């Protein structure tokens, strides 16, 4: 499943420079070093952390997209940074657990 295809399932695009990217698995976490140590390339990364370091970690760890759960907002200038760095960011209004369950069903 591609990042673009999530838009048909209630996920909202925040930054979508490379929506054709394939999602392979999911990782959940807010501690950035933990995410860098454990997330796999092409994972969708669910988090509520929305600072500039989130974008750097997503870029360097090469996740397919960041999914901001719980409807958390990201500042406008950070969204621009994400676009410049080719980082896909989606938002889900659902809590983290429900977001993960939904992704599990969609990726199954």
């Amino acid at each position: 499943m591609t990042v673009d295809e999530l838009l048909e399932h209630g996920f909202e695009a925040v930054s979508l420079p490379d929506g054709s990217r394939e999602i392979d698995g999911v990782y959940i976490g807010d501690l950035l070093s933990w995410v860098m140590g454990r997330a796999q390339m092409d994972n969708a990364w669910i988090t509520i952390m929305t600072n500039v370091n989130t974008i750097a970690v997503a870029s360097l760890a090469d996740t397919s997209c960041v999914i901001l759960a719980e409807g958390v907002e990201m500042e406008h200038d950070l969204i621009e940074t994400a676009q410049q760095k080719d980082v896909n960011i989606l938002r889900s209004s659902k809590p983290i657990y429900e977001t993960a369950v939904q992704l599990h069903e969609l990726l199954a």
Partner: protein
Amino acid sequence: MSEPLIFHFDVDGENFASAGQASTQVKKNLRQLGVPAATIRRVSIAMYEGEINMVIHANGGTADVIVSEDYIEIILADKGPGIPNIEQAMQEGFSTATDQIRSLGFGAGMGLPNMKRYTDTMEIDTMVGVGTTITMYVYL
């Protein structure tokens, strides 16, 4: 590629938000050189963790990346406080970062372990009160 390529960066110790600029640039450079994505990822993460450490603990430093035919060498040098107990610092979960740093999502005690995890060799040369130099190799 016959001659090794050398990239040098100054890591700004004052600006937490700009941490990662050197690693992001290295990622771009390696991509242009046609280095495999999985290798770029390893180098980028190891270097970013080092950059973050220099910002958190050492008021900045320098990062040099040498790309040769067989390996990528990353040398991170700072004039920070040094690491009193390397064995302790290498343990996952051990951190001396402040609450403010933790609120930004860092300070999980995974920085040095991640640098070791993603590189083929890592050497730490440190002296309390003088500084720390970390040299990492990723073989191609």
